[in-house]
């Protein structure tokens, strides 16, 4: 259960950004969360609430955009969405491929800030 430490990093980062832009309150944090990031959304959401207590983020919302796993198919030579993270292969031609293009994201993309 490392989601609490991840949530605390998110809060710390958001606080710094808010202060840097001269805002007193963070209304929401928008996060990209890859299916291969190793972070569980539900655990992160409950940890986030805890991590926000007594900070500029208290009462704020964590808006999570889940990013599916996209791989490069060396046969079709295009990016393809895998159908399951238990099976890394091209869904069209079946060629196995370990080359992940998307799905490892753990990235704060935007903040909603208030005075």
């Amino acid at each position, binding site marked *: *259960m*490392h989601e609490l*430490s*991840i949530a605390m*990093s*998110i809060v710390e*980062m958001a606080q710094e*950004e808010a202060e840097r*832009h001269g*805002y007193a309150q963070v*209304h*929401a944090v928008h*996060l990209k969360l890859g299916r*291969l*990031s*190793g*972070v569980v959304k539900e655990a992160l959401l409950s940890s986030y609430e805890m991590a926000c207590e007594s900070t500029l983020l208290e009462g704020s919302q964590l808006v999570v955009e889940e990013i599916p796993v996209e791989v490069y198919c060396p046969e079709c030579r295009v990016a393809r969405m895998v159908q399951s*993270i*238990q*099976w*890394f*292969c091209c869904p069209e031609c079946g060629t*196995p*491929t*370990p080359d*992940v293009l998307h799905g490892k994201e*753990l*990235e*704060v*993309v*935007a*903040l*909603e*800030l*208030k*005075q």
Partner: protein
Amino acid sequence: MSAEPRLVEVRKNVLKQNDVIARALRERYRQAGVLAVSLVSSPGSGKTAFLEKTLTILHSKYRVAALVGDLATENDAARLARSHAPVKQIITGTVCHLEAAMVQNALDGWDLSELDFLFIENVGNLVCPSSYDLGEDLRFVLLSVTEGEDKPLKYPTIFHSADVAIITKSDLAAAVDFNEELARANIHAVRPGMEILKLSAKSGEGIGRYVDFLEKRLAITRPIAPVGSGQS
């Protein structure tokens, strides 16, 4: 006063701090010519026995050292000290994984150029360590024959994050009806093309091939002989 919130674009990796330290560690390993290998697995898969065997065998020919992560005890370091290689314990407390900063702190005062191999044993956990880059050159994921062939499918993220799968406790394979073909297929389903080595730290089966693999990787890491290794 109660103005609408303003949207500010940020685009920052949450684990940026960890990644920065990991990159610095990777560069430090490269400059020192040391091959850094981390081990991840579930608790009880034989990580410490595997590492003890590794250190004991390599110690006669190479300069090896290890960092071992543990939640609370120093038992592993005491066990590994029998190999006569330098071993340092990282007690993580309540933290269920190693982070790059912990490795950096543990290496404080170590001259890496005096090493050929550095092993980093992560906390026994197949979930949390997958998110953290430790700067290692290779990540081994261990799967013991007693755990069942479907572990890779249950924990695809960590198996996918690894470079090599080590099937351990091969001496028990027959006793537990281990289906090696199925285990290999499952590993390759989550990480196509991954190198798989099967061995037993107890009987020594597969150890020769494993040591060959390490030696080849060290040669890639260090294409030029280190200074002081003899004149031509």
